[in-house]
């Protein structure tokens, strides 16, 4: 019977007695069949299972059921499980991690000299994508910078003039802009300055540009942070604004070519441009669920084990018959490839699925913030959204 079918009289009676653990577990599974996926939607809505079950929101019940297990917490890579949450909330956290947590990135590039072969706009684009890091406290207190639109963009100007909110947000200052410069010129290697004669080496057949020239490769570590005003307090020593990966290649030069530019970095969100997204990516998957309904023994069990990634299925020696029996050991390692459903020997013996409310999150940071803190920021941001709309709702009600 589908989960939404009306209950019969004995089912209602049984419900009032309380459900067995197995039945409750059954309701948590999304079934994955050979070619379909069924029971996808959550069914814990009040009234769905009739009057016997109370599914309305209860904070205490939620707090008791919610479980968070941490699997890994490296500085830029965190993996943890949230159990007992609904998909809409878990997805909200994931979306906020990707698109709404502010971070710092290069936005405006003022190019004084670019005689390299990389076009100005391509160079500026590449600079914007370089992930930056610095003192967390300093980054958190950075203010927004909202560039006023150009005078001929009437549509944008009309919207902009209404924002009489923070006048200092439209001018770059030490509270909302970080300045980084890059000044590199490529030249031949000379004996006096570098200990080798690049031109002579070239004549002799040397083709490696890093030997023939100096500064032929422009790397991210050559970006120079220039603290403005009060930034000296926030970003100095360990907390200096610097690229996360110093070995990012920005451009290649040849003798005589020069790149001289100044970058303004501002705070932005991933929804505006992906360079502002603080996560390399943040994703979640549901815990796979494998149910062996009839025993799989002997050589079949070995074949069954090979249908799954290593470690998912273990073979236990059955003491009675002495044969190997397939047993589910670690479903978290499974990738749900449904390989076992392709073989006739296992038809009717195995059921695959996913646990609907067990989310295995993987948050990988680009390096500006620590991944565990990023998830906390995401939760706080969702809370801030709710609080903001409560204020707006009060205003709306007053106006009626």
């Amino acid at each position, binding site marked *: 019977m589908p989960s939404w079918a009306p209950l019969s009289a004995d089912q209602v009676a049984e419900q009032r007695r309380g459900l067995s653990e197995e039945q409750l577990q059954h309701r948590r599974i999304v079934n994955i069949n050979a070619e379909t996926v069924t029971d996808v939607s959550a069914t814990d809505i009040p009234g769905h299972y009739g009057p016997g079950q109370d599914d309305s*929101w209860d904070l205490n019940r939620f707090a008791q059921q919610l479980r968070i297990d941490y699997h890994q917490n490296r500085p830029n890579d965190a993996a943890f499980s949230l159990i007992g949450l609904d998909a809409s909330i878990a997805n909200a956290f994931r979306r906020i991690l990707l698109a709404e947590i502010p971070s710092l990135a290069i*936005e405006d590039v003022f190019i004084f000299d670019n005689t390299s072969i990389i076009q100005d706009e391509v160079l500026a684009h590449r600079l914007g994508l370089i992930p930056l890091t610095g003192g967390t406290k300093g980054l958190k207190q*950075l203010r927004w910078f909202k560039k006023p639109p150009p005078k001929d963009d009437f549509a944008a100007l009309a919207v902009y003039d209404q924002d009489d909110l923070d006048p200092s947000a439209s001018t770059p200052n030490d509270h909302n802009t970080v300045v980084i410069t890059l000044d590199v010129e490529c030249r031949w290697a000379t004996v006096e300055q570098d200990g080798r004669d690049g031109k002579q080496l070239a004549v002799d057949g040397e083709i490696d540009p890093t030997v023939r020239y100096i500064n032929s490769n422009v790397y991210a570590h050559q970006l120079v942070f220039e603290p403005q005003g009060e930034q000296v307090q926030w970003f100095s020593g360990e907390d200096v604004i610097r690229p996360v990966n110093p070995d990012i290649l920005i451009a290649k030069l040849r003798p005589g070519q020069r790149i001289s530019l100044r970058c303004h970095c501002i705070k932005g969100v991933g929804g505006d441009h992906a360079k502002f997204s603080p996560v390399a990516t943040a994703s979640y998957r549901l815990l796979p669920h494998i149910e062996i309904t009839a025993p799989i023994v002997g050589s079949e069990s070995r074949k069954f084990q090979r249908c799954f990634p290593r470690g998912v299925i273990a073979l236990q020696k059955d003491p009675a018959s002495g044969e190997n029996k397939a047993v589910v050991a670690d479903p978290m390692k499974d990738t749900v490839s449904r390989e076992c459903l392709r073989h006739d020997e296992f038809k009717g013996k195995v059921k695959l699925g996913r646990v609907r409310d067990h989310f295995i999150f993987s948050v990988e940071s680009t390096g500006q913030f620590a991944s565990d803190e990023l998830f906390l920021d995401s939760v706080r941001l*969702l809370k801030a959204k*709710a609080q903001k*709309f409560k204020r*707006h709702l009060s205003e709306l009600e007053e106006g009626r």
Partner: protein
Amino acid sequence: MAQDGDQEMPDASAGADATTNGVEFVREKQRLRLLPGSTDTAASFAFDHEDHTLGNALRYMIMKNPNVEFCGYSIPHPSEPVMNLRIQTWDDVSVFEVLRKGLNDLEDLCDVVEDKYTIARDEFNTAHPEQAAGR
């Protein structure tokens, strides 16, 4: 490249409120509208600059309320940053109370998640000091 939020939050930390160093109270733009044809028990709201992130989460919290007959959200057009939320209630329950309760419940949920997460993370850090070594 304009910033997406009209509402200014000069304090950079996520989730912080509007005042900074006692400079000036930053006024927020009204982001919630009531669509025409709404009554006290059946109303449609329009949220500006919101999408599935808040929409689906709020819809779930409001559906958990047994007084709600109908709750759904939609994004009328992907090019416009608007999200519509419709709530219909049983008997004479006010739609505004239901929305407020949904927002409160969402806040409480976030609090619980934040607390439990912090506890789990700190326990893990003490149990596995070698992983936090690179910080």
